[in-house]
């Protein structure tokens, strides 16, 4: 594997067979600049040194994503002193999206890199919460897409499911659920991306993971379908396995650079730390 993600030797052995189905990881060394730098607040994320024009675009996108991640993290780590209140998973997703969208509009990004929030029905049918797209000029047709599904900590998700069970479900939501009943949300998103091709990535965005509940991580790949033949199902455990034992991760900037520099039809899988 061409991946240069550092790993402990024991964990590497443990995960090597699991990851072996992945055709190729990013050829680049993970960009660690943002991880080793101390955090200096939300605004610091947007103060970047002048860059040449080609890398400006990538940097602006990644800055917007980092900004949204940092803002979301503030709410992710929030703890009510009385332990009665906590933001719902949906609220956290909305905070991320609202912050990202506001930033991207402020940065005049939307003409070239847009973000489409899915309708409630599309979230069920396609498994994605939103889709980022690099747009071709002048048609504005998507050239590269990143379909994003947010995964919350299991206890948060269970609480939301309990609350949802008490609420009435609209007719169209029931129909969407019926249409999608043979696959789980992970499989639906992988199917959606696979149906488009290698220029569509699935990004599973973890708002906290089991061993680090206060940070945001992601697993991005245009090659999840490779797992379909090897495993019975694509499920949360399978996706979480990508993050196990890793010490170093790509930054949002590294992720965008890898996507932009990838050759057509090449497989790419990255693990990213967003906050």
């Amino acid at each position, binding site marked *: 594997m061409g991946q240069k993600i550092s790993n402990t030797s024991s964990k590497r052995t443990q995960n090597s067979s699991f990851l072996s189905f992945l055709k190729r990881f990013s050829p680049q060394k993970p960009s660690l600049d943002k991880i080793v730098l101390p955090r200096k607040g939300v605004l610091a994320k947007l103060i970047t040194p002048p860059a040449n024009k080609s890398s400006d675009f990538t940097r602006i996108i990644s800055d917007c994503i980092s900004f949204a991640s940092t803002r979301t993290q503030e709410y992710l780590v929030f703890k009510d002193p009385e332990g009665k209140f906590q933001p719902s998973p949906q609220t956290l997703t909305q905070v991320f999206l609202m912050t990202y969208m506001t930033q991207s509009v402020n940065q005049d990004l939307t003409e070239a890199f847009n973000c*489409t929030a*899915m*309708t409630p*029905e*599309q979230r069920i*049918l*396609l498994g*994605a919460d939103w*889709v980022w797209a690099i747009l071709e000029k002048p048609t*504005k*047709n*998507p050239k590269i897409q990143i379909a994003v599904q947010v995964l919350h900590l299991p206890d948060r998700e269970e609480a939301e499911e309990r609350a949802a069970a008490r609420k*009435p*479900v*609209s*007719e*169209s*939501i*029931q*129909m*969407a*659920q*019926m249409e999608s009943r043979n696959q789980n949300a992970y499989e639906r998103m992988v199917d*959606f991306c696979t*149906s*488009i*091709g290698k*220029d*569509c990535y699935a990004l599973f965005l973890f708002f906290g993971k089991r061993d680090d509940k206060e940070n945001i991580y992601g697993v991005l790949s245009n090659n999840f379908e490779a797992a379909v033949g090897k495993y019975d199902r694509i499920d949360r455990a399978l996706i979480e396995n990508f993050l196990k034992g890793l010490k170093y991760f790509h930054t949002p900037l590294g992720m965008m650079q890898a996507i932009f520099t990838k050759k057509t039809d090449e497989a790419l899988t990255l693990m990213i730390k967003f906050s």
Partner: protein
Amino acid sequence: MELYGKMAATQDVKGKGEGGDQNFDYMFKLLIIGNSSVGKTSFLFRYADDAFTSAFVSTVGIDFKVKTVYKNDKRIKLQIWDTAGQERYRTITTAYYRGAMGFILMYDITNEESFGAVQDWSTQIKTYSWDNAQVVLAGNKCDMEEERVVSVDSGRLLAEQLGFEFFETSAKDNINVKQTFERLVDLICDKMSESLDTDPAVTTGAPTTKLTDSAPPLQQPGCNC
């Protein structure tokens, strides 16, 4: 070949959520197809929500809305699928053609390319749908007369050649939107009646007719819609 009457009755909607109106006589699956930016989503929004926005937001993959209409005292639920027109979504959109009873094939009267693609879209219907699917050809954006490049006659002629009904429409000015859907529903109902006439077994509730527990049994046998 699966009978038309069964198609309407076998729509498999389960679940009894309080928010869902499960009380209907028939459910028709309809698709809106055509090139990107011809106005498919706007057309659906106008029909389902009576709303219009000029901002162009490209549909990702597929989406749908539900609308109930009444015809001869029958409640007909329309499940209307809005498809992305771009080539990159073709695999996912054509997967939804299966089981569709009607199509609105749309082009933009100000866009020659979208009109030229109608034949290809028609072939897609034949390839991925079934013989009895009904099609209405819609030349959208007829409010933009000054930018027209496709004449009404060209649209009508092509519709005749393909065996489709034809309307010029405007989602923006709400011209012929409701009429297009109503005509498509009429065509489907007519086709259902033909099928039922040729196979009375359907009207007597043949064992293969899979009515779900959520859809009430048909009040009267046969299609009177």
